[in-house]
């Protein structure tokens, strides 16, 4: 009993230490951080100006594209989470942490906090670039914050999918396989094109993609083309369902490291 009492009294301190660890890593690798932030911006510019339009999209394409890119960035965050978790597992850092008198859960809490912070930063950069390109959200400030909230909720769900997959895979080499799979899942969404313009079965698949739910709701809240009112519910429920599945799976998997 005193075991857990001791341990939980430090839960916050330990989680903060683990979060700070990630922040210190960023400070040490500014280039890597910049590249990470620049990647979605590059995608935005490529699709916005090079490709320049999506099938079945009416109205301003940038208006349609930016919510899609925001959602896609959140989905791709899964890779970063997986890479970080497998790296720590492989290097034995997780083992050392587990042999310390710290709250073991702080390892996962620190990971989540750092990844969420990075996602907030990623959203801010992407929104700022959009603003510089002349894009504007047409809804209220409340709706804007609601949209950001939905995106982060989706990212939070993806985060726990990432932690679980990383614990299952165990090795960084497996991450590559997942990275290859993340792309079609990311692109089989309404991020770039309207599902109505796709062949029937594909359109259905795309509409069911949880990422599309988030993108559609964000478009609605931003007052962009492609938004559908009444979609916010689905954009809340889907991530919660994913969390309900993957959060306990990841926690269980983590506890099973001692098996």
């Amino acid at each position: 009993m005193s075991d857990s009492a001791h341990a939980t009294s430090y839960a916050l301190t330990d989680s903060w230490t683990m979060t700070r660890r990630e922040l210190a890593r960023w400070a040490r690798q500014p280039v890597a951080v910049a590249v990470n932030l620049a990647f979605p911006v590059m995608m935005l510019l490529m699709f916005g100006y090079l490709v320049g339009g999506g099938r079945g999209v009416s109205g301003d394409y940038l208006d349609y594209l930016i919510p899609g890119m925001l959602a896609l960035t959140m989905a791709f965050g899964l890779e970063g989470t997986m890479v970080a978790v497998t790296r720590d597992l492989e290097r034995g850092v997780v083992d050392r942490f587990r042999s310390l008198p710290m709250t073991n859960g702080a390892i996962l809490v620190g990971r989540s906090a750092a990844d969420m912070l990075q996602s907030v930063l990623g959203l801010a950069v992407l929104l700022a670039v959009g603003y510089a390109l002349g894009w504007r959200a047409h809804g209220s400030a409340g709706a804007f914050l609601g949209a950001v909230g939905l995106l982060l909720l989706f990212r939070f769900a993806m985060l726990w999918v990432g932690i679980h997959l990383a614990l299952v895979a165990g090795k960084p080499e497996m991450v590559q396989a997942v990275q290859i799979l993340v792309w079609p899942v990311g692109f089989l969404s309404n991020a770039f094109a309207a599902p109505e313009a796709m062949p029937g079965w594909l359109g259905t698949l795309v509409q069911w993609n949880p990422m599309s739910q988030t993108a559609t709701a964000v478009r609605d809240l931003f007052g962009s083309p492609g938004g559908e009112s009444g979609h916010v519910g689905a954009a809340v429920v889907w991530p919660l369902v994913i969390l309900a599945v993957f959060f306990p799976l990841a926690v269980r998997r983590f506890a099973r490291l001692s098996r």
Partner: protein
Amino acid sequence: MTDAAITVEGARKRYGDKHALDGLDLTVARGTVHGVLGPNGAGKTTLVRVLSTLLRPDAGRVEVAGHDVVTRAYDVRRRIGLLGQHAALDEELGGRQNLEMFGRLHHLGARRARARADELLARFGLADTGRKPVSAYSGGMRRRLDLAASLITEPEVLFLDEPTTGLDPRGRAEVWSSVRTLVGGGTTVLLTTQYLEEADQLADRISVVDAGRVVADGTADELKAATGGDRVDVVLRDAGQLGAALALLPLTGARVDADRRLLSAPVTDRMAALSGVVRALEEAGLEAEDVALRRPTLDEVFLHLTDRAEEAV
């Protein structure tokens, strides 16, 4: 309370149908260095993982620093240090940052964690490299930093899992001297190794582990003696004469190694055996390059005791 820093009774750990620990027993007295010697896959790392609370044993009683590793894991963790097979450090952070982080996770508080980090960097000769990222460290430096990280709170019991595997001779010497200074401070050390020389150099007592159990236990000298005591080695100039030497020399139970032109046999009376051999060589006109008496090496003990003896000899 006993005087043992580590007590293991009948520890079992199974993966599928492989028994990594198969009823292992071990007692390590406080303030000593205990070597756990065994071939790859003998269960050494599993043992360290169980002792350091990373793995739960399937069965058996395991106590470290007076606390059960399963039911009192937290109390054990406060009293141990672990040096795993690979340096468990944050490669992108600096040496000082790593030590400070581990200090905070030991709940030293910011100021003490910082002071302790500086102290350890100085003690391990890393003071002027504290800011460099660990990825820029040499193998030996990395291992020393890793060792420093496992000593944040002066642990009662320190586990070293193959601490010098993959290091060059210089790095190995660095780690050895660090371990020796530690022991002076009263820390109990359990060290696993595949290098017999390492166990011979560092350990007060040695347990030879094979297939998940301890197959022999004792000081290096006791183990050597148990393997058959002294031997006489005769190296001939001409391998073709080995057969003749085997027939003529007053030795029983001799072993022949044609590649090394070597004939080796156990002896009881050292001096009598030596003079007998020299006389017999002269009488038979056999030319010897070297005749020597020697204790068995730990290698021989090891090969003798572990299953792989048959394959290796």
